[in-house]
């Protein structure tokens, strides 16, 4: 299938027979690779150094030849060299600030934004079949954090719903306000809960402490995106998380759906009811040997996650991440084909770098920020 056809017909695109999926994803990658190698001088130099051109990409097994950009390059001051599109074409600068404080900035041009918005919307429809109801967003609004990737992705989901409430404001979260909002929607709308795992966890902790067990609606969903490891280093266990959602929100595990993505890539892998995160066929995940990231590991082996994305025209979105995980090419009981991905952990030495960590850190430490020695003349600017 052509890229445009896949974006337009997700039900078919996610269920292509194996050989067709291989051909579709290879063709999409070859096309994107050819564009960046031709129009991006910095990337072309990498391709020339590696001695690889679009004509060398014939089969899925050839995708490993496509040169990767280490994700930390997006933090560099001279990140403008990564751009294939001129700044005049850049529409959205999406950023993520991890525990290190230096932001990673991904600049998306007009064409990429159109494709990504279509892709994310399409995936929400494909995986959640949601088109009405109310969303309790346990995150700041896009008005408060216009450049935060996670919030931007959640906000697309908002467009499919009839009502919404953003519960995090000025980096403060009040679980009582969340309950009040759920109460208000009861009897009139199906209630969904959307947010990073740690904030859903906070709501659950509150319900547990107050001994309140809610029973949300038959079609309610819990949709999460963002890290499962807190900035403190503590991990949130998925099984326990699902069990608590069932107990305190009355939502069964098959309606708790996590997603995986990173702001530098346009790929969003969404969980099906079997809790497998499906990589869309316009993206490909290549698992690399931790010791030598030029080497691709077989499905099922754990290694560094490389995300290759054919939607990006702004910069070559062939990215070597600092995440560790594996892919699975075996058929999923849901009937969808292609790859599924499992995130395991961050690479050793990598900072925790995602929007969720940044929100959590600031919710927890507003007092610490206030106590920081910021002389009056250097008061933080808005932005």
């Amino acid at each position, binding site marked *: 299938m052509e890229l445009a056809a896949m974006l337009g017909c997700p039900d078919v695109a996610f269920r292509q027979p194996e050989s067709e999926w291989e051909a579709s994803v290879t063709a999409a990658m070859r096309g994107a690779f050819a564009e960046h190698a031709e129009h991006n001088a910095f990337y072309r130099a990498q391709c020339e150094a590696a001695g690889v051109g679009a004509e060398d990409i014939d089969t899925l097994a050839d995708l490993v030849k496509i040169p990767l950009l280490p994700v930390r390059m997006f933090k560099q001051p001279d990140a403008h060299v990564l751009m294939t599109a001129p700044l005049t074409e850049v529409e959205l600068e999406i950023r993520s600030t991890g525990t290190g404080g230096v932001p990673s900035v991904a600049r998306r041009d007009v064409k990429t934004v159109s494709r990504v918005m279509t892709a994310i919307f399409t995936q929400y429809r494909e995986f959640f079949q949601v088109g009405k109801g109310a969303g309790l967003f346990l995150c700041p609004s896009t008005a408060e954090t216009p450049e935060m990737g996670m919030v931007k992705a959640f906000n697309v989901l908002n467009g499919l719903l009839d009502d919404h409430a953003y519960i995090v404001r000025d980096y403060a979260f009040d679980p009582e306000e969340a309950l009040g909002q759920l109460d208000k929607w009861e009897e009139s709308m199906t209630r969904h809960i959307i947010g990073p795992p740690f904030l859903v966890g906070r709501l659950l902790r509150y319900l547990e402490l107050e001994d309140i067990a809610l029973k949300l609606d038959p079609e309610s969903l819990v949709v999460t995106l963002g890290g499962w490891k807190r900035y403190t280093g503590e991990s949130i266990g998925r099984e326990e998380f699902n069990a608590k959602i069932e107990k305190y929100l009355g939502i069964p595990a098959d309606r708790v759906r996590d997603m995986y993505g990173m702001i530098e890539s346009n790929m969003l892998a969404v969980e099906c009811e079997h809790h497998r995160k499906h990589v869309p066929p316009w993206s490909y995940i290549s698992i690399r040997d931790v010791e030598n990231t030029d080497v691709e590991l077989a499905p099922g082996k754990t290694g560094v996650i490389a995300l290759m994305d054919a939607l990006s025209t702004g910069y070559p979105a062939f990215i070597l991440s600092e995440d560790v995980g594996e892919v699975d090419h075996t058929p999923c009981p849901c009937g969808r084909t292609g790859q599924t991905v499992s995130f395991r952990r961050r690479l050793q030495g990598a900072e925790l770098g995602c929007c969720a960590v940044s929100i959590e850190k600031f919710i927890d430490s507003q007092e610490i920020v206030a106590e920081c020695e910021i002389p009056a003349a250097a008061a*933080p600017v808005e932005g």
Partner: protein
Amino acid sequence: MPRYSPTVVDHFTNPRNAGELDDPDVRAFIGNPVCGDQIMLTARVTDGTVAEIRFRAHGCAASLATASVVTEAALGATLGEIEAWDDERVEALLGGLAPDQRHVAALGRQVAHRLVTNHREGVDDDAPLICA
């Protein structure tokens, strides 16, 4: 109006005075702990005039361009002149800003003023003013 002024496009694409001076007379750093925009200036000052200046910046394209135009405007300027800059002056140097880019004018003005204050008081920002 285009999304980025021609000046912002020019300075983002071809930054002037990028880098860091070895052994500068003064160093100034401004950062936003939430969104992460950061500018660090290092400069040599001779007879109250900026003789040499470099920047390091992280953040959105407009903030990177701000760092570049601020160094260009500061080079050869007296500290008194720089102290008179306000947000409007920085925005004018950038050839105008879209509403969602306006925060960088304050960032540029603040880091320029901080350079002057730090030089006068003989202090340095050797660490980012960010809670990591």
